């Protein structure tokens, strides 16, 4: 654990980070920018797992291993989403959610 810092402060930090991500996800219209907000949220989750593991039961490794899986899944998700975005850009030359309507109907 970090000396002099309680779990509450770390949880507050991750909460703020998560909701900054939510705000970005709701206001952005560019697909890549939305994906970046998603990364912020995933990061907040990973910190939560690690911090709770460290503060409440440091002897077990569950939180750390969950965070490892989260990072692996985030990498996979980002690679796939960026591939889809690139393909969409090739098709329509536009990745703005307000203007892309290929999958709409």
């Amino acid at each position, binding site marked *: 654990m970090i000396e002099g810092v309680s779990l509450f402060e770390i949880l507050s930090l991750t909460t703020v*980070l998560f909701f900054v991500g939510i705000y970005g996800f709701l206001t952005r219209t560019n697909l890549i920018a939305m994906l970046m907000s998603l990364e912020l949220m995933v990061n907040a989750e990973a910190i939560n797992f690690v911090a709770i593991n460290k503060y409440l039961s440091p002897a077990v490794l569950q939180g750390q291993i969950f965070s490892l899986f989260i*990072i692996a899944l985030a990498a996979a998700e980002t*690679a796939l989403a960026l591939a889809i975005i690139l393909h969409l850009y090739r098709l329509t030359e536009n990745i703005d959610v307000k203007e892309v309507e290929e999958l709409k109907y």
Partner: protein
Amino acid sequence: MEKILFYILSAIIIGFAVLSVTSRKLYRATIYLLFVLMAVSGLYFMMEYNFMGAVQLSVYAGGIMVLFIYAVMMTNNIGKPLRSISTKRKILPFIIAFGTAILAIYAIYSYQGIANVHEATITSVDQIGQKLLSYEKGGYVLPFEVVSILLLAVMVAAIVIAKAKKLVNQEKN
């Protein structure tokens, strides 16, 4: 000392996260996101989870950010700012995010059941590797294999989806 360092890291994380979701230049937003990810890895190092910090640095700050930067360069005119949203359409998301954040922080602080455990344990990479490949009770060998298959599938899928074809407009001509 560590407390001050934690607050500096928190300020970096929150500040650059806000910049990253509000900046109208996408390339700059990507670099701000890189700073956030590096500060998060600093947080892992402060918690003495060195392996997690290294993974965060290499996978997130190294791998994913390169993907993002390439995608931004291929799809955006870097000098051109993103289209702006009117302030009216930002109010509701701001209220939703801010209100829910306040609610969540209130819920966290009103919870009494957390007892801090004061044990100084440093987990080594050795322990993590043993746990990941252990097939006894509490072992993680099955999720580990599933994730590896998932990564392989994603790699194939990404190649298939992003494989270069002619532009649609050129085909029409």
